[in-house]
């Protein structure tokens, strides 16, 4: 199990591996979208074919970046985008001679947070957003080491916000898939 975890960590920390996965995914989406669009007529299919075609070509170039001539390679690898430089990592704006102990390069908290978000969405679908909200908040805050008292207070606060949304916007936040199946 620990070997698997170590392999997983190594793969995730390999930026080029992630890049290949991402561009490979875009390539697959582009190919599927293009093939689908060939079944449609001019007015319906022209725009999707055009955009999917561009996605296929550009993602293929990113996938093959290692084999590109140096004159073209800089188009893929030329530095950072002016926005991504800020966004790509929380560490980016903190390395200007200022020591900051919060920063860590460990990816685990990010993966766990992503799993929490997915779990929250899935739980909300099953039991309804209203009930899933405090459960998510308690689970997340307790995982991140927040004291029970604070966790429960925050869960109560977010539960009230959810009730506010349900009441003012008349949203069916209390019902999920289970309650619909059981007819509750």
């Amino acid at each position, binding site marked *: 199990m620990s070997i698997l975890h170590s392999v997983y960590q190594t793969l995730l920390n390999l930026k080029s591996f992630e*890049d290949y*996965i*991402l561009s490979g995914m*875009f390539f697959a*989406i582009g190919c599927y*979208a293009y093939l*689908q669009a060939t079944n*449609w007529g001019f*007015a*319906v299919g022209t*725009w*999707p074919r055009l*955009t999917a075609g*561009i*996605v296929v070509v*550009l*993602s293929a*170039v*990113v996938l093959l970046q290692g084999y590109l001539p140096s004159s073209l390679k*800089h188009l*893929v690898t*030329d*530095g*950072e*985008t*002016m926005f*991504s*430089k*800020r*966004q*790509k*990592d*929380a560490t980016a*704006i903190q390395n200007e001679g200022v020591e*900051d102990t*919060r*920063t860590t*390069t460990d*990816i685990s*908290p*990010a993966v*766990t*947070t*992503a799993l929490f*978000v997915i779990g*929250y*969405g899935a739980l909300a*679908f099953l039991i309804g*957003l209203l009930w899933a*909200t405090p459960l998510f908040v308690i689970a*997340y*805050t307790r995982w*991140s080491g*927040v004291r029970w008292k604070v966790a429960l207070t*925050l869960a109560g606060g977010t539960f009230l916000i*959810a009730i506010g949304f349900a009441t003012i*916007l008349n*949203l*069916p*936040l209390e019902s999920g898939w289970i309650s619909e199946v059981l007819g509750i």
Partner: protein
Amino acid sequence: MSQLAAAVSGVSILLSWPVFGWMIVGVLLGILAGALPGIGAGLGMAIILPLTLPLDSVSGLVLLVSVYSGAMYGGSISAILINTPGTGGSAATTLDGYPMSREGLAKNATAISTTASVIGGSIGLLTLLLLLPLLVEIILAFQSPEYFMVAAIGLALIVIIAKGSLLKGLLSGALGLLIATVGIAPMQFEPRYTFGLFVLQDGINYIAALIGLFAIAEMITLSKESGGIAKTSVDVTSGSIRDGIRTTISKPVTLIKSAYIGMIVGAIPGGGSTVANFVSYSETVRSADKTQNPPFGEGNPTGVVATEASNNGSIGGSLLPTIAFGIPGSAATAVLLGGLLLHGLRPGPELFTSEAAITYAMLLSVLFGNLVILFVGLAVVTRASILTRIPTQLIIPVVVVLAMLGAFSLRGSWLEIVTITAMGLIGYLMIRNDYSVIALVLGIILGPIAEENLIRSLQISDGSFVVFLTRPISLVLVIIFILILLVPVLQRQSKTM
């Protein structure tokens, strides 16, 4: 009644009770709606619309316009403090506003946002009042080729945005355009990429995509840290409201230019504050001195001035086609159109003749509402900088909950939950790998406008692209489009040579 007499009459109506009171209530509700991710101007106004029924028509319409104005400003609060744009019109504010918060300058950033919003909104509205007859003529001349070219110019801005990895920037933009094709095809009513699911026929909601790409992706990034959003090494109380105001006033060119970009783009149906926000930001980046410190995207105050002046500047512009032609440029103005009809007023020339006093009262409520925004923004919102010191372990679950609730409230559909989750994860991976999330957002927003008007233009011209060159306004837009594409590429070439 002359226009001047109508304007004077409009002022006296607006300053009468209870109309003035409803204006203040509207601005405050708008700021709240704008600050809550997923609610924004459109939904906020939609919630309030039925509540205006018992009010007289002037009070009801002033209330709606004031909510609109307040929400345009309110969106910047969450954009600056937690990197979550409350409205699409504040999406570009996150780019420099949030890094300022992280540097302990949230107080400055919110003060800049307040003053730029107020000045930009006022410039836009005053100009609108002065140029009303001329603007009506220009808007009437816009047809599908011009609409397509405006969208194309927006997409061409990707070249400016993707300053580093140009190819990845273009790929992100194309992917955004592809995502926007999901759902019923415009004008054809044929489903595309819906996998037989009814819920996908309405397409991917761009607000949900925005929330996922900005809020969820950022929360996943923040989870790797402890402490607050602002770095532990900085003092969040060290920022200064006065410095923020001074910074804004010291950039008159950016202020005026952004307000006018907002006004013009806002006046084009389909343009709206979101497009205006990005166009204005990109233009500011393009025309600015490249040696600025901090650079754009890393907490440059000029970026906040540009985006906030433009989104409030777009209010005046977007009201024009709604009132004059019944063509809403955005969801918010569509609700306002509903409000006009609900109160027995038909958009058209009558609103500038027999009902001109009501029209002026509505337009001037934006101007007077700005004073409320100025007071609330400087006295209350700037104090919210303390939020950036709250530990991320507490901020993350609250923002995720707000994002989920806001997304679900868009259409009451689980598709939005899936959208923000998927976009959050994809956005996080894209950011880590130097893809431009902003280019993706631009593609999603502009895709439907570009497609619909391209197909319509080609249908009009029997498939000939010459239609874009034979119409004077379209030709000017084509030239601007080519210049935007060529200039940065030539600049890169000259640098590498």
